[in-house]
């Protein structure tokens, strides 16, 4: 049993498509926002996979660095979207 870049990209594609589906299918804005971390997770997995398998002899840290920034960015976007959507009873 082994893992290659194609398998990693398949997982990334599944996460991205699931995130897009969540963002367009949910009626509630706060529920649709939950699709953003899924898309970012898929992109991060793709970056980390390419850094692990396709940069033979090259620097692997760029993909990992992007994965870290994407995770932080996903959290920031969810917090921003929920903050704009508003707290209960704020208006």
């Amino acid at each position, binding site marked *: 049993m082994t893992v290659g870049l194609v398998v990693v990209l398949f*997982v990334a594609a599944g996460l991205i498509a699931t995130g897009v589906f969540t963002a367009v299918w949910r*009626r509630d804005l706060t529920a*649709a926002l939950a699709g953003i971390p899924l898309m970012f997770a898929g992109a991060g997995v793709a970056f980390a996979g390419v850094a692990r398998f396709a940069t033979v002899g090259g620097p692997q840290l760029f993909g990992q660095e992007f*994965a870290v*920034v994407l995770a932080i960015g996903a959290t920031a976007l969810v917090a921003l979207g929920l903050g704009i959507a*508003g707290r209960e009873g704020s208006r």
Partner: protein
Amino acid sequence: MDSLHAIGFYVSSGVSLAGGLGVALLPGRDLRGLALGVLGVGLGGIYLTLSAGLAALVAAVCYLGCAALVASPQYRPVEGVVGSLWRQVGAIAAAILLAVLAYSAFRGDFVHASFYGGVFGVANLGRVFFAHDALATEAVALLVLAAFAGATAMWRVRERGR
């Protein structure tokens, strides 16, 4: 990658995809938050098996924070104004996107760096954007993305108020 890491990768991938499907399909903010937490744990496992330990730690913490935000009862639901027809079109577009990405992954010759830029010199641009000026590129991309997301959310809230 040895067998132990491969098993860990497949298990983590299954956990993260199950969490993603839970976020998409489960009703209620509590269950959605739980599914997002499961996704975060699975994503951390994926990064860990890909030798990205720091990314695993940061992703797990960030996605558990996202799960806490999504599951929080403090935020009121905001109903969208998009009709069911456009939602179905968007769902079909998501399926098409999955097919395109899966085909691209299956035909993943591009990852072997056999393409060196062509007439537009994209390889040189890529080296500048993703190596020399990587942090600046990330900062600008996040700023633009946050601006688009904020503008979209404000537009939807305003449309709902009308």
